[in-house]
């Protein structure tokens, strides 16, 4: 155990703080007391081998889950799951969820006056291949209003959930789209102070993966925490 190499801690400003007052829901849900720093033990350095046997071949195509075709702009979303040392993260579960093309979720909590699409649930999952690659076929999500402040709108986004090899690499995040005019106004996107870190949540239009007469391509690489070069026990 004393030989275990732990995961690096994030650089200042590259991850959100728990309290980000412009995002009002964080005010009563962020811890007030400082977190207690602890070493990463075997518990933290391990994690589930989870869900792989429950991923079907069509689970990464969100346009094929119902009898008809969903409305909206089809897109191919692909990229790689990497760690911060640049190594691919193979055979790892990715789950995504998103609004439909009109900016509506099929969820009892979503009361936005925009139509549901009977042919779109907005949920998909896949497992990265041996080189960390993933691919989804979906519909470009719409922007939607929320009640955080006056005239608040969420930019178009897709939620991502990722595991990697341990509970230290667990990540839930949101992917955004290039050129979205709502990004400067969104308190959730802007909770990250480091601009490079913020911009890393924005996908790129990808002509290479765009399919003629069918769908536009977008590319987004996701980076999980990576292991430190030296065993934690030796660090002061």
């Amino acid at each position, binding site marked *: 155990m004393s030989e275990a190499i732990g995961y690096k801690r994030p650089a200042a400003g590259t991850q959100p703080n728990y309290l980000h007052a412009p995002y009002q829901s964080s005010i009563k849900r962020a811890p007030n007391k400082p977190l207690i720093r602890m070493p990463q033990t075997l518990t933290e350095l391990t994690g589930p081998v989870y869900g792989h046997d429950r991923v079907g071949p069509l689970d990464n195509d969100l346009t094929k889950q119902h009898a008809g075709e969903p409305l909206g702009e089809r897109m191919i979303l692909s990229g790689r799951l990497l760690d911060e040392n640049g190594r691919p993260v193979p055979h790892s579960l990715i789950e995504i*969820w998103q609004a439909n093309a009109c900016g509506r979720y099929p969820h009892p909590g979503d009361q936005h006056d925009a139509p549901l699409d009977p042919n779109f649930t907005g949920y998909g999952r896949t497992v990265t291949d041996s080189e960390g690659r993933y691919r989804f076929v979906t519909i470009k999500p719409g922007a939607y209003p929320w009640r955080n402040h006056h005239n608040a709108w969420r930019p178009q986004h897709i939620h991502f959930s990722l595991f990697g090899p341990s509970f230290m690499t667990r990540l*839930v995040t949101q992917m955004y789209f290039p050129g979205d005019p709502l990004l400067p106004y969104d308190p959730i996107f802007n909770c990250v102070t480091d601009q490079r870190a*913020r911009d890393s949540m924005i996908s790129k239009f990808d002509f290479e993966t765009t399919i003629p007469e069918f769908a536009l391509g977008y590319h987004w690489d996701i980076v999980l925490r990576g292991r430190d070069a030296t065993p934690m026990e030796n660090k002061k």
Partner: protein
Amino acid sequence: MTLMPTASSTVGPYLHIGLTPLQVHDIAKDASKGEKIVISGRVFDGEGQPVPDALLEFWQANADGKYATPEDSQDKPLDGKFTGFGRIPTDKEGRYSFSTVKPGAVPGPGNTLQAPHILVCVFMRGMLRHLYTRIYFSDETAANANDPVLGLVEDAGRKPTLIGERTAGKAEYRWDIRMQGEGETVFFDC
């Protein structure tokens, strides 16, 4: 090559669409060894209101203190298909409940031994980055007293927030999460 890890974000209010299709309430289902237990409780925000849009993930060793992953190189037996992983959303009253088996002890830093515990990863609307905490067991007094992680909690008054309270006469534990205020749960930076 060094890359910057992708920034975390909140699961948002519609987390159920993305994170409940693969939920796991019954971790005990595949266990052949160990005491079957039920752990339940509620999640509260800083005003004492229940949190109906949280998701909890659990990770634990089997009854022999072995994690079901190749990342655990200990020479201890796996228990069939027991994964030690659970994932559940809270309900409208902020409640959660799951069944499992009591985990065995696992090694800690240096030559220490950790008391039986379950890692908890907390997600919710309003939380931009998940939080880590732990559930220990109230009937493990001696092991808890020597646990290297519980030992990091200097304010003894906060330790009970990390300990599931066993219901007399039943294999059940009660453990709540309080985000703020009196009894604020201990969360870890790891």
